């Protein structure tokens, strides 16, 4: 009996870790933009919806899979540069709160545009990855979850290398450190912001495909930001590594809490429990586990 309970607890934790990977996929999109512009992009969830809806609508119209991927990437690139030109550039040097409110409005515009262009129907998205379970040492696993974890790991590795070793990545970091200094040494802020919003669009597409395969491509995709916010608070808004580690921690913690603490509260606690964890972290470590500590002189 004890062995069975132990196995069950391990399974709950493992399931949480795999869910956490999915949360991190969304959180990475936030991190990319915050890291380079200091903007908390509330429209990231809408971008996930827009990317997935564009992709699946193209596939349903007979466009081959990779053709749809390429076309959606082109659309997300255009969207990224359009946002830079029409929203960010006119608001350059405004307060972070102003920029945050701008992205809040942007999220409604993108959601509305997505439904206006592609309709409001729910779509099935089949990536050809099996969801059927198989057992390893008595634990149920699915190929889909493992593939999602692999993709997230690859994305983290690629982005980390990008920021560390490429010219563009270094430019991103320079802009993040000091926009005025970056401008003074000749970096083109507009182009960098456009590029980073494009990168966030690519992350949104990947997250949209994986979440869309799990939920169906529908309006609710935009609500997955609610799962990413506590991950960002815990991991730090500007750390890609923090996003993945915090995703794992939040995923496992909320699932264990739901199963073992939930019954004392009547169940259904995982939605707010992750936020309670984030609140505690905010009190103890405001910049998160991996976030850059900001020191300001007045």
């Amino acid at each position, binding site marked *: 009996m004890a062995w069975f309970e132990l196995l069950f607890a391990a399974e709950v934790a493992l399931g949480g870790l795999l869910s956490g990977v999915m949360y991190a996929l969304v959180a990475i999109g936030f991190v990319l933009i915050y890291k380079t512009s200091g903007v908390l992009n509330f429209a990231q969830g809408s971008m996930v919806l827009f990317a997935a809806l564009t992709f699946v609508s193209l596939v349903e119209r007979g466009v081959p899979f990779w053709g749809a991927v390429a076309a959606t990437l082109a659309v997300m690139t255009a969207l990224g540069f359009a946002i830079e030109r029409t929203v960010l550039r006119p608001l350059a040097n405004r307060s972070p709160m102003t920029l945050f409110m701008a992205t809040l409005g942007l999220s409604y515009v993108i959601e509305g545009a997505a*439904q206006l262009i592609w309709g*409001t129907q729910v779509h099935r998205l089949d990536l050809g990855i099996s969801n059927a379970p198989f057992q390893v040492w008595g634990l*149920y696993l699915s190929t889909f979850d493992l593939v999602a974890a692999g993709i997230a790991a690859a994305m983290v590795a690629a982005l980390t290398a990008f920021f560390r070793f490429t010219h563009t990545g270094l430019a991103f970091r320079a802009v993040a450190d000091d926009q005025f200094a970056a401008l003074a040494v000749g970096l083109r802020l507009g182009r960098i912001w456009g590029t980073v919003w494009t990168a966030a669009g690519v992350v949104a597409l990947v997250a949209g495909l994986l*979440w869309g395969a799990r*939920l*169906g491509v529908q309006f609710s995709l935009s609500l997955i930001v609610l799962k990413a916010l506590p991950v960002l608070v815990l991991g730090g808004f500007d750390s890609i590594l923090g996003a993945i580690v915090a995703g794992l921690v939040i995923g496992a913690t909320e699932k264990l809490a739901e199963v073992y603490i939930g019954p004392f509260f009547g169940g259904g606690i*995982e*939605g707010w429990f992750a936020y309670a964890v984030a609140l505690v972290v905010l009190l103890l470590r405001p910049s998160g586990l991996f976030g850059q500590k900001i020191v300001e002189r007045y």
Partner: protein
Amino acid sequence: MSFLTRIAPALLAATFLASPVLADDQHFPLQSYRVGPYAAGGTGFFGGFIDYMTLINTRDGGVNGVKLTWSEGETEYEVEKGVEVYQRLKSNPGIAAWNPLSVGIAYAMIDGVTADKTPLITINHGRTDTTDGRVFPYVFPLLLNPYSETSGIVNYIASKEGGPEALKGKKIAVLYHGSPYGKETIPIYELLAQKYGFDLVQIEVPHPGNEQGAQWLQIRREKPDYVVLRGWGVMNPVALTTAQRNGFPVDRIIGNVWSNSEEDVRPAGDAAIGYTAITTQASGNQYPVLQEIIKTVYDAGKGNLSDPARIGSVYHNLGIVNGILNVEAVRIAQARFGNRTLTGDEVRWGFEHLQLSPERVKELGAENLFRSINVTYDNHEGEGYVTFQQWDGQKWNVVSDWIAPDWALLRPIIEKSSEAYAKEKGLPIRSAADADAAVSN
């Protein structure tokens, strides 16, 4: 189909959409939702309702010569927008009834429609104790309230197991949406578990339900014989795919009336094949009334659905049945008050005499689409029968006869709740004579 043709309904409804409202017409203000998270259900339901009214206007010239008109206001399924639309449209002349298809909006309107003396129709949903028309004269949870739904599902499981006595010792898990809607049936499942002797586990899924790993692991640990899915929106396909990931057999999952549409199963792909759900109205377009709508409305280019492939879908057919019930209530009221535009209170009288036998349903071209209804002044649900349909990957197939919920068992509980409400609000308990006299004044 052109891009503009496809988006036109959403564009128009997103702002305001209305047919001209004339004083000698019978009017239906519609708090529709064609954008937002529940747009798929909203476009289907309101599309079906409008298609049926268009059929009546086109084929019959209205109800005994009285044309039906409607206005749409977009709510996105949000309560505050629904109330705002109600305030905006309630001054339209000749309003017959409100049909918001939203528990939250309906709750917010109860006091208002009671003061206005206009019926509020909550087909298949709403507050259960509004079934008691003695206390709630203007609210009609037609065909199925949540308690009857619960009883219907348990009766179906009993029929699969060989009778009610076979439920003893079985275990049923209820996976419910973490909202007032989801929680409404908790005490009824407990009551039925006591009555029939089955073990019961009720597990909440936090809104919106896009992550259910922990809940399905709990279900796997409990090893229930059946899982009842009381979901809404994205929670439904996620439940089915997560059940598959946890090795729970899909043919042991029974969905409730808001987990029974094509939009609930299609995103789940093969994980949904074999899934069964309750319904008050069958899907498909083989019924004579559907064929007439295709011929008279869609072939004439007047159909409301932008995608004709959705004709006969679950929500579309629910809208059509809702249209039949509204139109017949007007027709019944006209037989007493005259073939003219009726007041809301007169239409309320019509709903309180909405008795459609299976024979009358057949005359209306809806045989086997829904069974019958028997509304009275004190029973605003009207003893709707339920049936069960199974998803085969492409369409729903009916797999049961019409099943009657255990109304006699549920009625005292409903009356207890409604009488407590009446006491709290200082409302009178109406008699049949009161119901008849009210409209004469």
